[in-house]
């Protein structure tokens, strides 16, 4: 059905008088998220302040059969918040309150537009922090983190968003406000919260999030080690893991990534390094001291020619600066680039890095590697010049071949950026038709009309139809409406 955007905008103004954007130039600014090569200008943008407003907006969309997409800060890297030209974009930017820091329960209750870092900042005075730390944490929203099940450098030890969210208030695709979980460790019944987190905005819109706060560690120790090759650095990673140590983070950068970082932020990494490793340990001071000595020893034994240990937070910041700026830094050495997010089993890292090197040599397309070595989450940056005819296409090919490598080695096409619009076409390379069909049963249960962020995650939508089947043998108590008694 064709969208009557004027009529719908009028209705939205009744819901949020000062929060409806119809001006074309202003709408244009919402055309893409962090993945800028997919863009679509939404027909209407709405900026609600409350869950009730979100629910009313969704109900209005459903009544008119209009698709809608939720957006937080728009930092996503898979086009998960890519709008629809025939649809509504619901932006949570005005819902950014930290509602409560509950120290005794180790919980924070926040609105979805609150930034990831603002939660940690609010909890810091009490000695707590919010553990998941995507690189965009200064700007990315908690609602977006929930949608994408965001990770970060420290998820090697602490897990992902799904392990740290204990409750969500959501607006379902029917426009109902439903509470999933809360401050308790779990809730009886199906794990709806677990299914919802990471569903990339396809099962509803979060309007309030309860997260677990983690006690700030007594000690944090960080080292930077320079190696001649990625093989040597990889051997150090294996040795550390095999020793039974679980670092908070282990990050690797190869020569090209180091070159980019030096050009951008002059991070002063060891001269002549073919690879650097950042290893961070945290926890009880006594345990960290003991394990850190071991990490240092194992790094040297694996060929580290220079090791620097951060003496304080400032030095730690310097070590991390090169790593955290790496994505943006490649802009210094290449006009354009594609960020990949594939994952391989950690033990396959050396071989996969070699194959990526071969791919780069064969195609003449440079690939910089900067990645979470501890969990095998690669972030190859495929560099190209979009002014050169055909380079973009070749870079796409290399990028696709890297994903094939990941799948070949039993890995994943995405470790933390999400499938979104970008990798939906790759899903059949990782999952069978039956797998995808089964996942879509869940989609159909929540959103039979598929109006909620349609076109994301799955390459082909499943037609949900009516709730299937004539049910036989229903329990007599269900029939008589006494189901709450179970």
């Amino acid at each position, binding site marked *: 059905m064709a969208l009557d955007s004027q009529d719908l905008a009028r209705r939205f103004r009744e819901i949020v008088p000062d929060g409806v954007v119809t001006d074309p130039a202003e709408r244009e600014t919402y055309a893409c998220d962090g993945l800028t090569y997919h863009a679509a200008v939404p027909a209407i943008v709405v900026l609600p302040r409350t869950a009730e407003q979100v629910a009313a907006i969704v109900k209005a969309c459903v009544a008119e059969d209009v698709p809608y997409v939720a957006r937080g800060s728009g930092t996503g890297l898979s086009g998960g918040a890519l709008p629809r030209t025939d649809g509504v974009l619901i932006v949570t930017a005005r819902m950014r309150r930290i509602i409560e820091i509950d*120290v005794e*329960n*180790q919980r924070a209750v926040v609105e979805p537009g609150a930034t990831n870092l603002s939660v940690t900042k609010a909890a810091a005075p009490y000695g707590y922090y919010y553990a998941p730390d995507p690189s965009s944490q200064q700007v990315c929203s908690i609602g977006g983190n929930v949608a994408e099940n965001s990770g970060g450098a420290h998820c090697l030890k602490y897990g*992902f968003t*799904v*392990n740290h969210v204990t409750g969500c208030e959501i607006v379902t695709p029917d426009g109902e406000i439903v509470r*999933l979980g*809360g401050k*308790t*460790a779990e*809730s*009886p*019944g*199906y*794990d709806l919260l*677990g*299914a919802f987190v990471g569903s990339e905005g396809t099962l509803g819109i979060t309007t309030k999030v309860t997260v677990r706060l983690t*006690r700030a560690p*007594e000690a944090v120790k960080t080292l930077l080690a320079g190696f001649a090759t990625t093989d040597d650095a990889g051997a150090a990673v294996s040795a550390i*893991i095999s020793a*039974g140590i*679980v670092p908070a983070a282990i990050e690797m950068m190869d020569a090209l990534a180091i070159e980019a970082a030096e050009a951008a932020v002059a991070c002063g990494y060891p001269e002549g390094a073919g690879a650097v490793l950042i290893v961070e340990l945290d926890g*009880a001071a*006594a*345990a960290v001291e*003991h394990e850190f000595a071991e990490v240092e020893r194992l790094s040297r034994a694996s060929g580290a020619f220079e090791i620097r240990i951060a003496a304080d937070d400032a030095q730690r910041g310097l070590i991390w600066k090169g790593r955290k700026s790496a994505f943006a830094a490649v802009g210094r050495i290449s006009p354009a680039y594609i960020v990949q997010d594939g*994952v*391989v*089993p950690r033990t396959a890292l050396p071989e996969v890095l070699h194959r990526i090197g071969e791919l780069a040599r064969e195609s003449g397309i440079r690939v910089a590697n900067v990645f*979470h070595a501890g*969990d*095998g989450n690669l972030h190859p940056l495929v560099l190209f010049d979009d002014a050169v005819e055909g380079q973009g296409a070749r870079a796409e090919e290399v990028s696709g071949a890297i994903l094939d490598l990941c799948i070949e080695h*039993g*890995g*994943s*096409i995405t*470790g*933390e950026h*999400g499938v979104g619009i970008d990798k939906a076409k790759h899903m059949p390379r*990782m*999952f*069978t038709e039956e*797998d995808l*069909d*089964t*996942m879509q049963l*869940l*989609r*159909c*249960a929540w959103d039979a009309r598929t109006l909620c962020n349609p076109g994301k995650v799955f390459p082909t939508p499943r037609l949900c139809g009516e*709730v*299937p*089947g004539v*049910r036989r*043998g229903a329990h007599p*108590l*269900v029939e008589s409406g006494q*189901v*709450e008694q*179970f």
Partner: protein
Amino acid sequence: MALPPADALAKTGVDVRDAGAADLVAGVRPAYVAAPVSAEETAAVMRAAAEHDLSVVARGAGTKLDWGIPPYRCDLLLDLSRMRDVVEHAAGDLVVRVEAGCPMSDLAAVLAGAGQRLALDSPVPGATVGGTLATATSGPLRLAYGTARDLLIGVTMVRADGVTASSGGRVVKNVAGYDLGKLLTGSYGTLGVIVSATFRLHPEPPRRAYVRAPVSGGDAAHAANQAVLGAQAVPAAIEYERRSRGGGATVTVLLEGGADLPHRAEGVAALLDGAEILGTPPDGFGAYPADPGTGTLIKLIAPVADLPYALAALDAAAEATGLDPDVRGSSGVGVLYAGLPAGVRPDDAGAFLAALRGALASRDGTAVVLRAEPDVREVVGMWGPVAGLGLMRRIKDRFDPGHRLAPGRFAGGI
């Protein structure tokens, strides 16, 4: 003309027999038992069951078949105990893939060989991987490592219609597609049959210490809890235990580590009055407070800060009904278990639950009866109030439109 069900099942080539007295599911006797040896055989049986409208309950070791509500239909018992292989233990990747029928203890033995473990306690002796997932049991380690849903990274299931499907994978970091493992964990077999699972692993800690201290009441338990949580102790578990209402209670803190452990244990002991440091787990550590095979076992969930309130609610309910439950559980995360002995009067158990749930409701707490004797089961509501039932029913309708998978065993009659 379609074959009779027994012949159709036999035609799958899978080992099928008539059910006997040892095959009851919470007192309900199925007609047949099928014992597949592979995911393919499981799918074949499930297809035959679908064609013949047979309701199906899956069984691993059968240690928790009398948990939950009896199924209102049960034609076929799917015995997965022959699917017990550790398919792949990638020690370097800290990942294991295992068949559903593998006993947790067998899995642990294999992993221990590489100095690794699945950091998930097995409170019911003999339980299998599949049964552990289906009922989402957990124990003390959940404070540090979460529960099955946090450790499961991939799952393969057979659907009600016999289709085999997987989600997740064999790498820890993976956000491709919906996470069906979360949905299946704790679903009591009502959404599909789990045939294999992939878990992330952790290194086996070199040393453990248990710091145990007596606590005089709910407020003291709460103070101990908060002192340890707020310190820099990095506890692996904080467990509360109380045998009988008037009797003494203790809090036990589990610490794991290496050479640093004695130092850390002393630090924790200094936080708790009258603490002693033990090298081995105190008697009954991590076990359920009632015999999971005979009594009534109740799981209380409340916010951690409401521990004294939850304990007071238990006392008040006990006093009003003259019952005297044993209590034990993970006070550090706000999950406690209360056990009533076999032979308790059903009306007393019903009144106890009603009082307990009434009190907990105001604090967003819940009390689920995991297991009860048949006469108690008929009186108490096993699940209590469950939020989100509407969505749960819709999920059930999509995954199992004929309502043939463990029908009626779950919350809300699902």
